[in-house]
């Protein structure tokens, strides 16, 4: 799916889904994160929450099997899990703000080693796309970020300070890129795991802030 080093998009989603613990309520954002609900999570009981009020959904359905009334946060037609329930947008974000989301998984443009991240506004733009990201980032118990490790020009997306306007400050607990899994630890990122074929010097070369083994 990608000529890039390390994991492809579904592999990043699968790797993050391995972090989900028994009983968690998991919110999946637009982009790669929505792929997590396609991951086989074995016998763990995970409830996927979408910001549009769908509580308890499963994999994206193949063409022809969709229910057009049922979408996840990315607008993909998903399946329902047993025990699912639907609420409206106010109640859905009530669940988010009241701290009931165990983890929110989002994409981002940049993640800082301070735990700040930016995913709603690009350089020079007047407008932006916030969606539910600020609510989720402010109030979920944990924020996990999935993103490509570098921009197309090779610039690191893992940084010491965000150059773009932040979505929330100091909230990111875990980052998964095509190169590996990282934790923001203040001055840099601790390397939790590297993708197959990636070694620490290669990862460090692609990263604008120190990596710690």
């Amino acid at each position, binding site marked *: 799916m990608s000529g890039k080093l390390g994991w492809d998009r579904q592999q990043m989603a699968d790797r993050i889904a391995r972090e989900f613990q028994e009983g968690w309520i998991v919110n999946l954002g637009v982009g790669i994160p929505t792929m997590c609900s396609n991951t086989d999570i074995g016998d763990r009981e995970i409830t996927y929450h979408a910001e549009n009020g769908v509580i308890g959904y499963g994999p994206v359905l193949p063409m022809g099997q969709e229910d057009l009334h049922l979408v996840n946060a990315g607008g993909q037609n998903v399946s329902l899990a047993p025990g699912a329930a639907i609420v*409206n947008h106010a109640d859905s974000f009530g669940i988010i703000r009241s701290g009931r989301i165990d983890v929110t998984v989002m994409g981002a443009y940049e993640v800082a080693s301070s735990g700040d991240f930016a995913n709603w506004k690009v350089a020079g733009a007047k407008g932006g796309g916030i969606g539910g990201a600020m609510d989720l980032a402010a109030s979920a118990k944990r924020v996990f970020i999935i993103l490509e490790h570098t921009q197309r020009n090779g610039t690191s997306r893992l940084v010491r300070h965000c150059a773009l306007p932040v979505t929330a400050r100091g909230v990111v607990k875990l980052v998964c890129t095509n190169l590996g899994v990282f934790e923001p630890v203040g001055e840099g990122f601790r390397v939790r795991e590297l993708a197959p074929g990636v070694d620490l010097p290669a990862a460090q070369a692609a990263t604008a802030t120190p990596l710690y083994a």
Partner: protein
Amino acid sequence: MARRSKVFGSFAEAVKDIADGSVVGIGGFAGPGTPYNLTKALLEQGAKKLTCVANTTGGAHQPRMPDIGMLVENGQVAKVICSFTAATRPTDTLPFTKYYESGECDAELVPQGTLAERMRAAGAGIPAFYTPTAVGTELAEGRETRVINGREYLLEYALPLDVAFIRAWKADEAGNLVFRLAQRNFCPLMATAATLTIVEVEEPIVPAGTLDPDLIHVPGIFVQRLVKIPPAPEGLWTVRREERTR
């Protein structure tokens, strides 16, 4: 008690008296609940200087359906209040974005949960509330915050609507509404926030007393007008989008 029917015969008739300068909420999230037919009728009706409130201005995906971006392109919109005024990925472009960048249309960018809660507040007689969302971001700059139990919160105000356009699955003649699955989203909140709620309905509209009172998502007292969506091609229905990986 003789129930007066709230059913209108056409979308054109249901939107006929929407005035210039109205604040119009348009329900829906990524397809389900989106009132395509009412939006199309408003494009034809031509009211101007509107403030449009919705999750997004639309137009990110094909096939394109009637959306706020089209109302903007049609010169009808002074301002939008949305959680997206640009696409999430830099490589995408929303039709609306260029009108905002050029200053032809104003915009207020609001986090999605705050947008929902502001309309819920308007519908519940709560003029203002505090939320943790957006604290420490550019959106909170220069605005009033308050520390409660050691945490900082941002003050947000109710967002009342003049008109709400929503789409429901079932309705009775008294205006009671039932939504199916992800169709619910912003629709109930907009109905409560609005002075005039107009609903496009997918299933045949049934007499009052037919729907189970326990299973109503929006009580009829919040709904003024209903229009049954005719079969395609006269009526607009959600069509399957190309499967996307984003």
